[in-house]
């Protein structure tokens, strides 16, 4: 029983986000009059999965007490690359898919190298690299266009067993085969250690550099998968900087809502997935409750501001003001 109690205490943030999501989605679903509920779920799933993957990408650097402002642009960049490469013969499609994923990892590699070896602040480093990635995206797709393999796209954005969106299965697979192993590895735990108390981790002999590096590469991987899925959804590549920026901001909010601490050391990708779905459901709720479209961006902006602020406000816990400066 203690086990359960302890697990509940540890996973408080995650559980809360799951409950909130279920409540909100029920609210949405209940108020959405439609003759095709499966289609509603599918559409919600497909948009949700995109943000969920980007949120997972943001989670890993945040665990190390960093932040990655380039996840949105990596998402855009891989979307454009996919729209160019994931077409043609099955072999080309397979090769293209691999190339897209590798390009995401490469972007993560660059971020990791600058932050770990260059010892630059993650925020400013990833702000700068985000420009590089959108530049590459613009190079490939100065105007929206391209194509993607129809069969693969239809499959991944479709349903099996009449109701279950394939995208969700894909998400679950990513969690099971990529996130969970990482979490259970020495590298993954090193990320938590570095975020929780970097000095203590070093004193204890943890290889912080390697873990942080892995965090950024993994981040690029997840963002790359998101870009790939986006291509399957839209059949095009679009180098839209505003879209990338919006995804980045939403990913930070999703991470916070999902219970991961912006100061590092606690949380996880699963919580961020639910945080992402909550954010998406909020948008859907606005639509269902007939909020005038003009008010929606403001509402979203306020929600995002509140979410990131609540996650980052330190003032409430500090009793020695001197500690605020460390």
């Amino acid at each position, binding site marked *: 029983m203690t086990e359960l109690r302890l697990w509940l205490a540890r996973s408080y943030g995650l559980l809360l986000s799951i409950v909130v999501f279920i409540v909100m989605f029920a609210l949405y679903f209940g108020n959405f009059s439609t003759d095709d509920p499966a289609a509603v779920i599918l559409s919600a799933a497909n948009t949700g999965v995109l943000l969920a993957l980007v949120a997972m990408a943001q989670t890993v650097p945040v665990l190390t007490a960093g*932040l990655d*402002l380039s996840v949105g642009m990596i998402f855009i960049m891989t979307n454009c690359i996919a729209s160019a490469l994931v077409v043609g013969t099955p072999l080309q499609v397979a090769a293209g898919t691999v190339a897209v994923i590798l390009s995401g990892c490469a972007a993560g590699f660059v971020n990791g190298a*600058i932050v770990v070896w*260059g*010892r*630059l*602040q993650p*925020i*400013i*480093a990833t*702000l*700068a*690299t*985000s*420009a*590089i*990635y*959108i*530049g*590459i*995206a*613009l*190079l490939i797709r*100065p105007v929206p266009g391209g194509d993607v393999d129809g069969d693969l796209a239809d499959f991944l954005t479709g349903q099996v067993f009449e109701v279950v969106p394939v995208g969700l299965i894909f998400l679950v697979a990513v969690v099971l085969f990529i996130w969970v192993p990482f979490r259970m590895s020495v590298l993954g735990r090193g990320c938590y250690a570095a975020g929780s108390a*970097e*000095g203590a981790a*070093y004193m204890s002999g943890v290889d912080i550099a390697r873990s942080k590096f892995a965090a950024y590469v993994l981040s690029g991987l997840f963002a790359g998968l998101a870009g790939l899925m986006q291509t399957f959804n839209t059949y095009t590549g679009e*180098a839209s*900087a*505003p879209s990338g920026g*919006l995804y980045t*901001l939403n990913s*930070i909010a999703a991470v916070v809502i999902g219970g991961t601490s*912006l100061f590092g050391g606690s949380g996880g990708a699963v919580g961020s997935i639910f945080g992402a779905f909550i954010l998406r459901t909020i948008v859907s709720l606005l639509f269902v409750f007939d909020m005038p*479209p*003009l*008010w*929606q*961006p*403001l*509402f*979203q*902006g*306020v929600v*995002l*501001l*509140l979410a*990131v*602020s609540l996650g*980052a*406000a*330190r*003032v409430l816990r*500090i009793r020695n*003001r*001197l500690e*605020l*400066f*460390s």
Partner: protein
Amino acid sequence: MPAILKSVDRPVLIAFCFIIVMLLAGSLYSSNFLSPEYLLQQLKIASFLGIIASGAMLVILLGHIDLSIPWVVTVGGMMSTAAGGWWGPTGEAMAMPFGMACGLVFGLVNGLGIAYLRIPSMIFTLGINAVAQGLMVLHTGGFAPQDHATAFMHWVAVESTVFGIPNAAFVWLIVGAAIVFMLRRTPLGRYIYAFGNRESATYLSGVNTRAVLIGCFALSGMLSALAGVLLAGYSNKSFQAMGDPYLLPAIAAVVLGGTNILGGRGTYLGTVAGVILIVLLQSILAVMQMQEAFRQMIYGVVIVAMLLVYGRGAKVHG
């Protein structure tokens, strides 16, 4: 001569050298690159970026960053063009101050959130940017019957009166002079550098560090909005996302000018050099007919390179 050179930061010197290199390179591409008309046009464009970079510099000197620049610029543009529509002739007369005041409000909100709630500036200003966007979408969706710039705004942004020097450049000059004065001759200037160097020691010296922070963010908001007003004057209208192209170049200019991204070090002269450098870079890329893609990549690479050379964190362990 050597004494003067010594008193100037190394990065600033390097920046000025690069400016000369740029000018020469540009002239190779296009014969009228070095012509007065073209250079003055560049100066005009540089003024807009320069005003934004001034505000960005103050915040960066503190060791913080203002990511709400894009939409606060837009707020400045939109609010100033709307003033005429809302309040008739009085509105038109007050267009510029009104636009600036709106930017000031956003800056204050930024400062309060960061100073009192201790939310990291990059996160809070990112959120405020989104809120500003939401407000502007709301605004343009139905409220503003007029989005034209006033004649005055246009005159300031586009015309040149004294010796053919653009009026906008004079605005930049005034802003720059005020900032240099503040940084070098007032206590606030000392507090800003001290804050950026070591906030804890500044706090323990009995300085009102909160006020310093709020003040700098307020100024940054106001200056971003001022630039937005001028930009609206330049194109005779305000439009969505008009501030988006200015965030990265502003930060790049500040960093290129030798201001340390961690705070506490940097001169206004350096920022001026950085702005000119960026504008020249932009125009060379345009002359070479390089696409937007390369421009973005170059910004990113330049910032990273400058940071690696000047802004690295200390080796924490060992």
